[in-house]
């Protein structure tokens, strides 16, 4: 009897610990949401309270006056275009590396995969100089090209694994039917590799949507800023001004898309994260 009681108590204690850490994770975000709907005065007078009247205009102000709307659209554009090219170019290369036997295959494959060991900052100065010399520094061409180049290692690593698992009978059947290699790739293999493309796509989405250091070095014009640059800049401005509501609303707008993608693909993310990590 007392043994069962002890077990029950242990269970309750365990849940309590789990709940406390959940609160530590969630509370700052709830606080943010509440702060984004407050007036500046409420923020100072009742930092813990909830807003008396939700100030939805904070979001409108963030979007237009603080320039977060512009940054948001910029980020959507940069992320979408980068992901398109990463997945297209990456899957083409991964397909060749996974399905064809040719001289130099091993070397090319390891050249791509070993790129994951080299951190961004190592080559940051030469990249900056290179982009300037090519005349594509401070442009989306420069930023997107760099994003694609820096994401290829990981993407090719993931997709080569997926293409290797696909049955070769289908490709052979396609070739015998008179389809060229490109038709087979596009019509037969790409649809089959969809789970791999989704996995690679999710991780590239988070990587690029949230990316900061490369954007900081490559983009300098205000009107080209992506969201992370935009809110970092807003924070620095806010040290001198007083409209906080817009900044908090801007923060909510940055997190919202990642929250949505996260809720949608929660399983794939957790599995992909650990599978990738455990294999690597």
């Amino acid at each position: 009897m007392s043994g069962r009681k002890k077990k029950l108590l242990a269970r309750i204690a365990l849940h309590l610990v789990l709940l406390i850490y959940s609160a530590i994770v969630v509370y700052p975000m709830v606080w943010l949401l509440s702060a984004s709907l407050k007036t500046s005065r409420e923020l100072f007078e009742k930092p813990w309270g909830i807003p008396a009247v939700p100030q939805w205009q904070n979001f409108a102000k963030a979007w237009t006056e603080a320039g977060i709307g512009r940054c948001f659209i910029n980020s959507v554009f940069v992320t979408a275009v980068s992901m398109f090219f990463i997945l297209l170019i990456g899957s083409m290369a991964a397909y060749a590396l996974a399905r064809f036997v040719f001289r130099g295959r091993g070397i090319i494959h390891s050249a791509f995969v070993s790129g994951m060991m080299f951190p961004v900052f190592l080559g940051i100065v030469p990249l900056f100089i290179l982009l300037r010399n090519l005349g594509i520094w401070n442009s989306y061409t420069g930023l997107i090209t760099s994003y694609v180049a820096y994401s290829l290692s990981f993407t090719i690593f993931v997709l080569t694994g997926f293409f290797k698992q696909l049955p070769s009978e289908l490709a052979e059947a396609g070739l015998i039917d008179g389809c060229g290699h490109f038709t087979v790739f596009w019509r037969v293999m790409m649809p089959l590799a969809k789970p791999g493309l989704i996995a690679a796509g999710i991780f590239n989405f988070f990587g690029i949507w949230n990316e900061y250091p490369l954007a900081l070095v490559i983009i300098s014009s205000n009107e080209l800023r992506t969201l992370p640059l935009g809110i970092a800049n807003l924070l620095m401005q806010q040290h001198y001004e007083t409209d906080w509501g817009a900044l908090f609303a801007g923060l909510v707008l940055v997190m919202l898309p990642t929250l949505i993608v996260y809720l949608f693909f929660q399983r794939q993310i957790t599995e992909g994260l650990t599978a990738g990590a455990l294999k690597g």
Partner: protein
Amino acid sequence: MIGRDKHIAVFVFLFPAVVLYSVFFVFPMAQAFYVALFRWRGLSLAREYVGLENFRKLLTDDPLFWQCLGHNLMFLVVSLVVIIPLGLFFAVTLSRRIRGAQVYRAIYLFPNVISVVAVAVLWSFVYHPTFGILNSALKAIGMQGPVNGWLGDANTALPSIIATGIWYSLGFYIVLLLAGVQSIPRTFYEAAEIDGAGSWQQFRHVTIPLVWEVLKLAVVYLIIHTLGIFGLVWVMTEGGPSNHTETLLTYLYRLAFQESNFGYATALGVIVFLVIFAISIGCSRLMKRETVEL
């Protein structure tokens, strides 16, 4: 004919990736080791070959470099001491049949998918002197936090950033270690239980040895993440107040893009890369030996 077809296909499939990767990734990375040998200031073409002078100056003549390294190592040590035990605790707990385990896991991982910049801005307000939750909580219980805010005070700035870093990344390590714990076959625990092992003994003699490889991986990730920290610090304090939170990469950024001291900054980048590389390999070696002993 088919052979030629195949070669054309391979060429076309690989061409865009190889060109982009070589020009915009491999070339800058390789060039770094060369640029580091020059005294090169500003965007002028005038650069002077100085051999290993930049490295000598960094290592023997630049106290700020060592200060930065110290801050990064502080980051690493505190993260190791906090994240590894907590990560293991939560991983083991969540691997049991516990109600809502998946929900907890999803909550814990969430900070990891938010932009580091958003995390940094959010926590800047937690630490804010006037309306930050931390200071107003202290005020509510009759105490007073730092007057200039937690990030404005030389003594509390670095610990505050480290705490934010842990809040941001603990979930990742929980999920990583959880995958390791879950891959241990249940029969191992059943066998241990039959032998009369209590839960601590099971943890010590079954869980630990069998998650050792994953644990090693977690340590290597921690080294890479803490020595490579940039965005969090740059957004929260820009290395201030007066260099009290300066890290290797904020210093590199300052050197390269505020002072246009390209050669010197790149030498710093090479050193950081080599340090990460050496510590990671050293750690794996060290931990390998212990696996054999077990």
